[in-house]
């Protein structure tokens, strides 16, 4: 029984009506009257809960109106709190007084679903993801909005945060950035070289993914989930599939679970190696950049040779996996890891003994532990700032319930810590992969999927290499996709970057940004 659920039912009595949510994760759902929605946030905040996600859904096809959800979590115990919102009064109580990240979630709800948060602590109603040149009444997530239409452009202006004073100046960066990276806009206010404020403007790569899901079959949804953020294709497809399997009551065969975990750890390895390389590169240590990207390339090539795709796209499907480990695969991976780890340790010695690198990485871009907690950050960003969060441990699926990952938590909160968490996780992923291969169960790799029943909800969380990914699915009146809510780790971790760069010098921004390396596409959807 969920402790979180007990807290709410005890506090609200008959006002808290249990709802149904189907999930492989420990999660419960409760419906509350709209006027008591914020009160739940107070109660749960006191209980130490983190606001993990916050979204809205249009349930008119199901004969209801709108609904707003907040997802809270303590130590892998998830709770969904829902309140209904009538069509003629599309407003809901803001949670910003209790939870900082709620302001981003709520701007997004207001922009894309047209539901207005009331009692917003910052009164920040600037659109988010929706740009100022969209028609004001374009709310794409509403059922009445035709997703196939072409949007006209209207005149509009985005009011930026300003800073004035002698010697204060602004640096606008992007959306097209200098390197080979995704687009987004950063606006710095600086004094000399010191950053006094950074405001992020994201949404440039908004592709209408959540709306797109609603026109796809459940099977095709797995392909789209695998393209929410290309570098996390395994993790996203996996979270979607697990939510869907929860919704359909489908049990993937044991071997599929283990292969999925194998893919997930290989994705973590490849991305962490690439990130360590990029951090070294932004500190002008080109030698390490080339060495680590070489190691990353070996992982990608083995992936292609064994599983047919360098990034393992579309290898995770609803009900299991689409590709098995070839008969010589285990041996090949073991040899690959032996060579990789030997090289890796040599390079880490060089990394560790390099004072000029240390000078750039230590005490740069500090995200204090309490701020990391209050902002609701997840993944390696949170772990580098003292937060013991890892869904592989707190909400495990097989084989993580039998082979436990090592929880790497550091407290220096700087670029170095974010790099070092990755270094430790590379080592641990190699260990996990070896153990998976030793104990890999035999059998089928895919189960048949039943179509979901109408008006049901599915939920899943998975620790991708960037952190906790959440999917919430709802089926419509004929069992089709009515809503697919995606919460990439970037949705919350981008907030951390804005805070971590304060007081740093402008030339250290690329280094700070690389140490976060958040996804634009996963955030913008």
């Amino acid at each position: 029984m969920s402790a979180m659920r007990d807290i709410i039912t005890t506090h609200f009595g008959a006002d808290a009506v249990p709802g149904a949510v189907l999930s492989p994760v420990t999660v419960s759902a409760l419906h509350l009257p709209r006027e008591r929605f914020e009160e739940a946030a107070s109660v749960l905040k006191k209980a130490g809960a983190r606001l993990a996600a916050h979204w809205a859904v249009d349930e008119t096809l199901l004969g209801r109106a709108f609904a707003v959800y907040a997802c809270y979590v303590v130590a892998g115990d998830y709770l969904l709190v829902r309140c209904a919102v009538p069509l003629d009064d599309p407003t809901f109580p803001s949670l910003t007084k209790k939870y900082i990240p709620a302001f981003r979630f709520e701007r997004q709800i207001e922009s894309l679903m047209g539901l207005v948060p009331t009692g917003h602590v910052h009164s920040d109603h600037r659109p988010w993801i929706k740009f100022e040149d969209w028609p004001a009444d374009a709310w794409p997530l509403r059922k009445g909005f035709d997703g196939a239409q072409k949007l006209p452009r209207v005149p509009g202006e985005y009011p930026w945060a300003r800073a004035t004073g002698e010697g204060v100046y602004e640096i606008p960066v992007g959306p097209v950035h200098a390197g080979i990276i995704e687009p987004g806009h950063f606006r710095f206010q600086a004094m000399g070289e010191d950053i006094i404020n950074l405001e992020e403007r994201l949404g440039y790569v908004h592709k209408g993914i959540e709306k797109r899901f609603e026109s796809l079959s459940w099977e095709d949804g797995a392909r789209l989930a695998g393209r929410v953020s290309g570098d996390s294709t395994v993790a996203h497809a996996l979270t979607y599939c697990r939510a869907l399997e929860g919704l359909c009551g489908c049990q993937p065969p044991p071997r599929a679970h283990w292969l999925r975990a194998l893919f997930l750890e290989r994705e973590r390895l490849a991305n962490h190696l690439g990130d360590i390389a990029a951090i070294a590169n932004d500190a002008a240590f080109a030698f390490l950049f080339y060495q680590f990207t070489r190691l990353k390339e070996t992982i990608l090539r083995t992936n292609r040779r064994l599983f047919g795709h360098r990034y393992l796209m579309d290898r995770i499907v609803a009900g299991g996996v689409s590709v098995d480990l070839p008969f010589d695969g285990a041996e090949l991976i073991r040899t690959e890891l032996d060579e990789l780890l030997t090289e890796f340790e040599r390079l880490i010695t060089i990394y560790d003994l390099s004072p000029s690198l240390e000078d750039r990485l230590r005490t740069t871009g500090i995200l204090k532990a309490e701020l990391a907690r209050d902002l609701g950050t997840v993944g390696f960003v949170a772990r580098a700032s003292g937060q013991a969060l890892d869904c592989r441990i707190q909400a495990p699926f097989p084989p993580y319930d039998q082979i436990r990952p090592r929880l790497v938590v550091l407290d220096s909160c700087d670029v170095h810590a974010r790099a070092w968490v990755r270094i430790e996780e590379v080592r641990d992923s190699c260990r996990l992969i070896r153990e998976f291969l030793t104990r890999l169960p035999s059998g089928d790799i895919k189960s048949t999927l039943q179509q979901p029943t109408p008006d049901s909800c599915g939920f899943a969380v998975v620790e991708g290499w960037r952190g906790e990914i959440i999917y919430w699915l709802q089926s419509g009146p004929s069992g089709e996709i009515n809503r697919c809510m995606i919460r990439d780790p970037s949705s919350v971790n981008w907030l951390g970057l804005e805070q971590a760069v304060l007081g740093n010098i402008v030339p250290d921004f690329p280094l700070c940004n690389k140490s976060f390396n958040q996804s634009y596409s996963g955030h913008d959807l």
Partner: protein
Amino acid sequence: MLRILHQIFRTGVVTEPLTDEVEAEVVMVGARLEEAIRRRFSRSLVIRQVDAGSCNGCELEIIAMNNPVYNCERFGIHFTASPRFADMLLVTGPVSHNMEIALKRTYDATPDPKLVVAVGDCGCNGGIFGESYASLGGVGSVIPVDACIPGCPPSPVDLLNGILALIDGQRV
């Protein structure tokens, strides 16, 4: 320092030896590419990469073109931060509604004559994102495109091949 030198000598040149089929392909494509670049672009083809809405999968492979295994710089291919220096725009897609203006401005800022290559299934035709209120589909629906490199994502070899096919196919 000795450790670094030691590691460099131990690693050697990873682009050789070429036993693997894929690696052999890199060098074959690369040699022809180098020849075409020498002839047409005075030994240096400068590329500005623009993400106009991709899922970042294509970016991973474009970055991989620069790793020591593919090392596209040896063929004279450089990536530049400014479109003002670019001979070619390498554009990934689909083009999002929110990136349309920035993409057009980048195109206008690139001096003529210029080449535009659409990268990835989504850059070619919108891919799984299709055309919607937020996605305008392939790059060709927003700016003139000279070549398309399909794939999800196209591998570094596919990218080198695609660039070669374009500059080789053009008359000198």
